[in-house]
């Protein structure tokens, strides 16, 4: 067959084309495909991570819920206890206050009674003097018989 200088021309053309294809088509395309591969892999990894995070969050939420429930129960128990305490305290206070009031009232009553007695005592002296004057038919001088009257008042 007729092999001639065309062969060399074609070899040069082939090698040049090879260089160009490598530079213009293969490299950018390969980079692109690799970048896409990476992006897809990253996306899948991110999806997996998201799923995992969701699971963790759900678990944590459940834990939080349980904790909150127990805390609420505790708080309620404490509140109840405290309420009871307050009631008890109030009762106690009321009782002591009542007692105090009763004592004070009793004291006042006694005082009043004493005061009345004193008044009565004072009046008893003059009544007694007036009574005695009427009996004796003359005026009994309170001043002259002060000692006697005092003695009498003391006896009442």
């Amino acid at each position, binding site marked *: *067959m*007729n*092999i*001639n*200088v*065309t*062969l*060399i*021309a*074609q*070899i040069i*053309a*082939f*090698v*040049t*084309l*090879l260089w*160009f*294809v*490598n530079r*213009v*088509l*293969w490299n*950018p*395309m*390969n980079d*692109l*495909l690799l*970048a*896409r591969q990476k*992006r897809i892999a990253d996306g899948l990894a991110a999806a997996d991570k998201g799923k995992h995070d969701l699971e963790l969050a759900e678990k944590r939420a459940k834990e939080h819920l349980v904790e909150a429930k127990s805390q609420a129960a505790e708080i309620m128990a404490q509140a109840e206890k405290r309420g009871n305490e307050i009631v008890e305290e109030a009762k106690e206070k009321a009782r002591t206050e009542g007692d105090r009031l009763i004592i004070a009232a009793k004291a006042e009553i006694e005082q009043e009674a004493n005061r009345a007695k004193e008044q009565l005592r004072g009046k008893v002296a003059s009544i007694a003097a007036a009574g005695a004057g009427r009996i004796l038919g003359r005026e009994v001088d309170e001043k002259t018989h002060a000692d006697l009257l005092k003695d009498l008042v003391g006896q009442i």
Partner: protein
Amino acid sequence: MSGSSSGNETVEYIQHHLTNLCVGDCDPVTHKAAGFWALHLDTVFFSVALGVLMIVVSARLGRNLVTGTPGGFQNFVEMIIDFVSGQVKDTFPGHNPMIAPLALTIFVWVWLMNFMDLIPVDLLPLIASGVLGIEYLKVVPTTDLNTTMAMSLTVFALIIYYNIKVKGVGGYLKMFVFHPFGKFFIPVNIVMSTIEELAKPLSLGLRLFGNLFAGELVFLLIALIGGTMAVGLGALIWFPLQVVLDLGWLIFHLLVITLQAFIFMVLTIVYLAMAHTEDH
């Protein structure tokens, strides 16, 4: 190609179509290359034009690459690249960034050059002679042995280069001496290995050339059916026959050109893979 059906004209028609546009050291009568310094201008023109087409299209595509959702053409190119790199990954051991672009270039370029075969055989030569005054034009670069051998010899050079790079000069020569029958048949081994190595570029280049040359020849013969019987009632039979045959061969040939491009690519990968493996 019209007129009488004399055998001479038929031969002339075919020969005319199989003659390259020769410049330089050419025979003035037959227009065939007479010596080494003859250049087939049509072969070089069409192969370079198709190469330039490849580069321009890829450069334009390369500027508008989309990472996310590629459009139609980018998708198509990505498919081809995926296919080629899949072939390389399947056959080629280890990693060599040279192999995949080489395979891609071979596949696409050979396919494009083969595709020229599907353009009606008389169309471009007619335009060339009618408009440009060029008398001889052979449009399919792969029907020129120079093109196929150029590629296979480049691949052969790469085979030798990687053989020596991977195994060293000694290792490569040792392969010639001790392969395939061991150390007691050294002369036989040398002959066998040399033939085996030389058969690689020869079979690679000749296979492609033979297939495309034959395909072109069949197209020419089909074109002759109608051409020889252009006038008269016979045309009513011959013309439809030509159309049907042409269409049939066209569809079949579409498979052939793809297959040939694929075979050239795969064998290149396989030969280079063999060059890269130690235990040959």
